[in-house]
């Protein structure tokens, strides 16, 4: 063990001083164990398989091979910190922790170590303010965007009027679940609906009392901020108390196959947001042929095409595109973490580029800038069809109400900057 760490340290030293080793190291803080494994596994499979495809098909990014350093966190912040510390010395380029709790933990550490983090539609919403959080990116959307998209969808369903309606928010009682509350409170003032908050203690196997309360109060809509086993239990409990599934909307982390399958036919009609459209993309066939069939898949290949697999792949695509951008900006293919950050800040995703990559329409078009690290913030609403076991998109990408969100982000970022003595500015 000692030998190994010293060897690693020595290796890192050699890599820092000598000519850069031709390898792009991308850590994957995954979780394939514990109560969140059902959701963590497909995401990690998609993330790694897409990077493996780039290795197999294009020889990496810009000719540099990619090496994925996987580390198991079990969605636990202490293990997440250990994973971060054990992988960062390896010239890690960008972190994707897939956990809001770990993200909060790593924001100051990654900023101090000057390694960028990409928190795809999770993490700290106010990291959208790139001048305060130069090393953290949450494109293509944030939690507050998600809350607003959900409310905008309900507005469109109710003829632009939610006054007098009640909306219950059932949430993971953690930093993740608490994120949307501030936005939903603002939106409830603006649109005149009543917001009820129902926290569920993680991991969330026990939700009887929350659902009894929902049965008693009969809110018009239930919005869920759940993850892992909590989603499965909530959908089952909703079915048990006879809550209408089409009035039950999950956020984009509560709308994947592992969440609805356990409830069987009872989950039919359940709605959820999504930030990436579910279709049969040509790139999936390439992954199947060149990665899974070649025996290089990160998992057993059974998750391919699922919501979270596609999202993991989407995250990897955004990472690969920003590394390509970084190589272009830096004029070298062996980029370092700081150059990747510059690439992320200059990232521009167009429909033409997505089509070129074999994933046409997977996400909205967006561009990142120093002021805005969160992209367009758009999301769509999809519905579960339990008979055919498919998610059916109900809407196109919905734009969030930026007039509510932007001042909140500015306020929260200013508070963070004041608390931590940061002078906002572009790098």
């Amino acid at each position, binding site marked *: *063990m000692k030998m*190994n*760490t010293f060897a690693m*340290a020595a290796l890192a030293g050699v890599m820092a001083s000598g000519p850069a080793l031709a390898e792009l190291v991308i850590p994957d803080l*995954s979780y*394939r*164990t514990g109560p969140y*494994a059902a959701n963590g*596994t497909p995401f990690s499979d998609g993330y790694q398989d897409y990077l493996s495809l780039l290795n197999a098909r294009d020889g990496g990014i810009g000719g540099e091979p990619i090496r994925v350093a*996987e*580390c*198991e966190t*079990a969605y*636990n*912040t*202490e293990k997440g*910190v*250990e994973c971060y*510390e*054990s992988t*960062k*010395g390896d010239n890690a380029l960008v972190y994707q922790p897939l956990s*809001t*709790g770990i993200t*909060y*933990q790593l924001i*100051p*550490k990654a*900023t*101090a170590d000057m390694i960028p983090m990409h928190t795809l539609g999770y993490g*700290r919403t106010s990291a959208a303010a790139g001048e305060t959080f130069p090393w953290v990116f949450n494109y293509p959307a944030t939690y507050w965007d998600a809350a607003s998209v959900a409310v905008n969808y309900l507005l469109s369903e109710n003829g632009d009027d939610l006054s007098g309606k009640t909306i219950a928010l059932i949430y993971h*009682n*953690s*930093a993740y679940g*608490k*994120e949307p*509350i*501030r936005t939903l409170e603002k939106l409830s003032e603006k649109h005149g609906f009543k917001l009820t908050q129902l*926290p569920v*203690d*993680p991991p969330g196997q026990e939700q009887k009392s929350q659902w009894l309360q929902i049965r008693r109060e009969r809110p018009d809509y239930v919005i869920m901020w759940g993850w892992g086993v909590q989603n499965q239990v909530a959908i089952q409990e909703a079915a048990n108390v006879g809550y209408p599934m089409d009035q039950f909307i999950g956020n984009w982390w509560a709308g994947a196959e592992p969440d609805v399958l356990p409830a069987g036919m009872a989950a039919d009609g359940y709605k959820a947001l999504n930030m990436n459209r579910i279709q049969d993309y040509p790139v999936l066939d390439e992954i199947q042929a060149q990665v899974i069939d070649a025996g290089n898949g990160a998992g057993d290949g059974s998750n391919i095409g699922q919501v979270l697999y596609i999202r993991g792949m989407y995250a990897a695509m955004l990472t690969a595109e920003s590394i390509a951008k970084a190589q272009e900006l830096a004029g070298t293919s062996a980029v370092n973490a700081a150059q990747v950050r510059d690439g992320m800040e200059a990232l521009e995703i167009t429909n033409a580029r997505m089509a070129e990559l074999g994933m046409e329409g997977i996400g909205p078009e967006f561009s990142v800038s120093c002021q805005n690290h969160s992209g367009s913030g758009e999301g769509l609403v999809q519905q579960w069809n339990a008979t055919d076991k498919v998610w059916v998109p109900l809407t196109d990408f919905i734009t969030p109400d930026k007039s509510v969100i932007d001042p909140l982000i500015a306020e*929260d970022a200013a508070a963070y900057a004041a*608390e*931590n*003595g940061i002078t906002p500015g572009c790098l």
Partner: protein
Amino acid sequence: MLYREAGDFKTTYAEDSQTFPIKFDRWRYWAVLAIAWLVIPFFVNDYWANAILVPFLIYSIAAIGLNILTGYCGQVSLGTGGFMAVGAYAVYKLMTAFPDVSILIHVVLAGLITAVVGAAFGLPSLRIKGFYLAVATLAAQFFLVWLFNKVPWFYNYSASGQISAPERFVGGIAVTGAETAPWAQYLICLAFVTICAVMARNLTRGSLGRQWMAIRDMDIAAEIIGVDPLRAKLTAFAASSFFIGIAGALFFAVYLGAVEVGEAFGIQKSFLVLFMCIIGGLGSIFGSFAGAAFLVLLPVALKVLGVDILGWPSSTVAHLQLVAVGGLIMFFLIKEPHGLAQLWRVTKEKLRLWPFPY
């Protein structure tokens, strides 16, 4: 031959009642301290500090605290996580309310606040014992976590409900916050560990410790010989919570930097610290260190062995780790129910006779 009392003449009362009566032990103690203070700080890097040394030191303080209560005074407690949370939130409120006061004072104050809370939750121990007391402390665990989640004042009304430690300095060197050097992180924890361990060791050797042990061995008999159970039990709860509060404060401020109460100080933390005490050895300060080392190092060692050396998939290693840790706990409990400290005691007995055992 080397390890023996013979020839080590004590000529004063102070010498006669010192902590380590055997010369070899004294040398070993100073050697360990010298390595910990003078050698390791020069070699420690981010990974060693954050993954191994700092959690080991902090869990050692927590295990010492719980060992005072459970090992020395015989009061089973499942509230350790909750009391660590009290320490963490106390230090957070103090750090943000009085930014000009030294963090060292805040950590000690956090320990004292936890001691008061712990003594309050210790009151039921005067009426109930054993499993029933365990359930009462379990209630403290759930109540405290619920409280810190429910009342926004404790987390200064932050949107996420998380608390995060602002940067604080000791003698101009950052000890909390992201810019902290690994050696500074290590040394501040080591300072608290050294002081706490010396304090705990002397408390347990003195009259208070003897009262606790009398209560543990048989409370009625202890009362008959003149031990006041109210005083003994409440001081045990207070002293135990003081150490646990310091551990919680360091865990939050120095180690993690940001915590969420439900995740960082949940019931699993209470069990983890209790396992450390049981595996290390109940009623032994050395055992607290051994148990903390065992449970902090083992997962990391297994991970390095499985993932980095053998190249297995990280998920397989994580699953195997659960099996291996569970299996080893069972193995130790069957083979050595008195914990690692007992192995150490047996070794010392053998050493006394070496090389001529009879």
